[in-house]
């Protein structure tokens, strides 16, 4: 395996920022206790009309798209052999592993009968024919793929941790690392290939999930192209998250940003964003749904905001492709992430109308749990990059404007 030089960042873990994250986690844990003891009705604003709220729409549907960076960078490095992106791979994979684990955690909070979750992967083998895989259910495929892919991601993240243990870990961990590393090395091509195929499967299926809501999903969003649009948005959002994560890490953890490499991503991202906008517009036009897009309602407005953000992201990112500067780079990546996130939240919540006067707006408890999951994700990231060789080791000489670009 080609290994780019990476090194532990070192430094203190328990910074003031880390302490704030601990407080957010503690508060969210109380909210979590309320959810598990009092039930979803007390804890959330979800209801029989809007049975899915932000834990699904944001934590899972947006969260795993932003967690597609590992897949998207692996595609460049291992499939298309663009080795210069290698320094981005380890942090991207770690962000993805954490993002997917966060999504999986949110699912445990969200499903009502969480004690039955174990049945899903083993259903055909333990119930004597009573239950089995229902392959018509896109959610089954998402569940199995996300479980498998989260495991794949942690295996992909493991080498730097195992290498550290092999070189300087305590006895048992050193033995474990010595035994595991050669096995990993052998199985790596299969793991890497799974790491490309599994996300393409479940990210597109996350779009397919809402196809069945024929009477509930607004005509500007309900289209047979949902799986394609979800696949396009996840790749772009994955790259955007890689850029944002690199910029935030360099800012909060105080090391220079590898702008030249990041800048090269922007051409791809601009292309993806433009393609997404073109496919959406063509789809709406060709299926005769333009009248819905020019109606004087907030659905039409949201549709144009989505398209506007995608087009703006494409234009902004295209301008960054040769002269990437940290500030504009991060801002244009954020516009792309916002375009994708808004699209996905619209499909799952705002463009979803069960009728009968049902309304949904997330409760404080739902927000607190989401924030707590996010804070744990961030704390684990900080801990791991400080202790293990994940971030690029050679300090890229900082461009003169890098210091003030991230206020």
């Amino acid at each position, binding site marked *: 395996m*080609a290994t*780019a030089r990476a090194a532990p960042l070192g430094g203190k873990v328990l910074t003031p920022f880390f302490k704030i994250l601990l407080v957010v986690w503690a508060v969210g844990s109380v909210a979590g206790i309320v959810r598990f*003891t009092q*039930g*979803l*009705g*007390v804890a959330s604003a979800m209801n*029989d*009309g809007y*049975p899915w709220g932000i834990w699904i729409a944001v934590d899972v549907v947006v969260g795993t798209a932003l967690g597609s960076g590992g897949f998207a960078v692996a595609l460049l490095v*291992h*499939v*298309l*052999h*663009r*080795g*210069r992106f*290698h320094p981005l791979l380890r942090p991207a994979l770690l962000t993805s592993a954490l993002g997917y684990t966060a999504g999986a955690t949110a699912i445990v909070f969200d*499903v*009502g*009968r*969480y004690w*039955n*979750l174990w*049945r*899903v992967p083993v*259903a055909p083998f333990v*119930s004597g024919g*009573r*239950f089995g895989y*229902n*392959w*018509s*259910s*896109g*959610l089954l*495929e998402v*569940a199995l793929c996300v479980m498998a892919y989260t495991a794949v991601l942690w295996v992909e993240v493991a080498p730097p941790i195992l290498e550290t243990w092999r070189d300087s870990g305590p006895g048992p961990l050193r033995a474990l690392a010595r035994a595991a590393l050669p096995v990993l090395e052998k199985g790596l*091509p*299969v793991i*890497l290939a*799974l790491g490309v*195929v599994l996300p*393409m*499967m479940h990210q*597109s*299926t996350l779009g*397919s*999930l*809402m*196809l*069945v*809501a*024929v*009477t*509930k999903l607004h005509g500007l969003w309900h289209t*047979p192209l949902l*799986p394609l649009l979800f696949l396009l948005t996840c790749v772009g959002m994955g790259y955007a998250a890689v850029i944002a994560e690199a910029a935030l890490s360099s800012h909060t953890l105080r090391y220079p940003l590898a702008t030249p490499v990041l800048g090269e991503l922007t051409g791809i991202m601009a292309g993806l964003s433009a393609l997404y906008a073109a496919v959406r517009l063509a789809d709406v036009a060709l299926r005769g749904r333009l009248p819905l897009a020019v109606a004087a309602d907030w659905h039409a407005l949201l549709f144009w905001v989505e398209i506007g953000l995608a087009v703006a992201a494409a234009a902004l990112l295209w301008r960054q492709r040769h002269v990437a500067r940290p500030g504009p780079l991060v801002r244009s990546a954020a516009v792309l992430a916002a375009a994708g996130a808004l699209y996905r939240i619209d499909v799952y919540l705002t463009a979803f109308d069960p*009728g*009968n006067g049902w309304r949904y707006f997330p409760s404080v408890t739902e927000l607190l749990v989401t924030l707590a999951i996010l804070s744990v994700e961030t704390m684990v990231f900080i801990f791991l990059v400080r202790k293990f060789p994940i971030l690029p080791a050679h300090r890229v000489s900082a461009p003169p404007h890098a210091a003030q670009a991230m206020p």
Partner: protein
Amino acid sequence: MKVSRRDVLKGLAAAGVAVTAGGVAARERRAPPAGAVGMLYDATRCIGCRACVTKCKEANNLPWDRSQDGLYDQPIDLSGTNKNIIRVAAAGERTSFVKAQCMHCVDPACTSVCMIGALHKEASTGIVAYDMDGCVGCRYCEVACAFNIPKFTWDRALPQIVKCELCRHRADPRRGGIFAVANPACCEACPRAAVVYGTRADLLAEAKRRLAEAPERYEPRVYGEEDGGGTQVLYLSARGVPFERLGLPELGRDAVPALSESIQHGIYYGMAAPALLFAAALVAIARRRGPEDGEG
């Protein structure tokens, strides 16, 4: 073997085309099972007494929905404590009662999306049944159902899905016939035979007989004969009260899950596309490393 990036991309494009072509292949229309049972609700006969609502609660061991003063059972909608409801619908000057419960679709969306078959369609009767041991409480059935039927016990720490199962637990094998498989309490309670239990074939014939006998009395069709792929609970509405007014959505002839299943099964036909992608990825990964791959 040398595989260029162009080859890989071509492979991916081919997979994409295969997926799209497979996705548009139409799904066959499903027929109700030979022994399909259901109900016929005739809105012109219903007087809104709600005896069926009360009887349903008793038969299904559901708690009362107390009014504010605690004296009166007053459910206002289907819920985690209510599987059957009588509502009033307005259409211009006219009003009509309407009963709502599971439609027991011929080709249901809820069973199409349920991960491991907690919600499933009984093979012989077509009853859409719930087996809570296989339910993880994901609530995808609630998202999928065009009639908004499955409900969730939101106020419980250990919740479940609640929906009409046609009182299959009240079946009595000694009685034989349709009562050997189910026995809906609502039909038993109705003083006007506004809702009756029977085989779907018998009920459809009876509905058509009523339409032919008094065409001026009814909207000129049976809701559920074809709607959304057909349902096993059929509706007749009073002339001048369109079915949409009764809260029954305009679905067309196609089953609600027909499109989503066509696309899902198209993309995953024989698992060919994912297998092809996996193989293409493996080949590309194993390919001779280029100068950019650096040390290693």
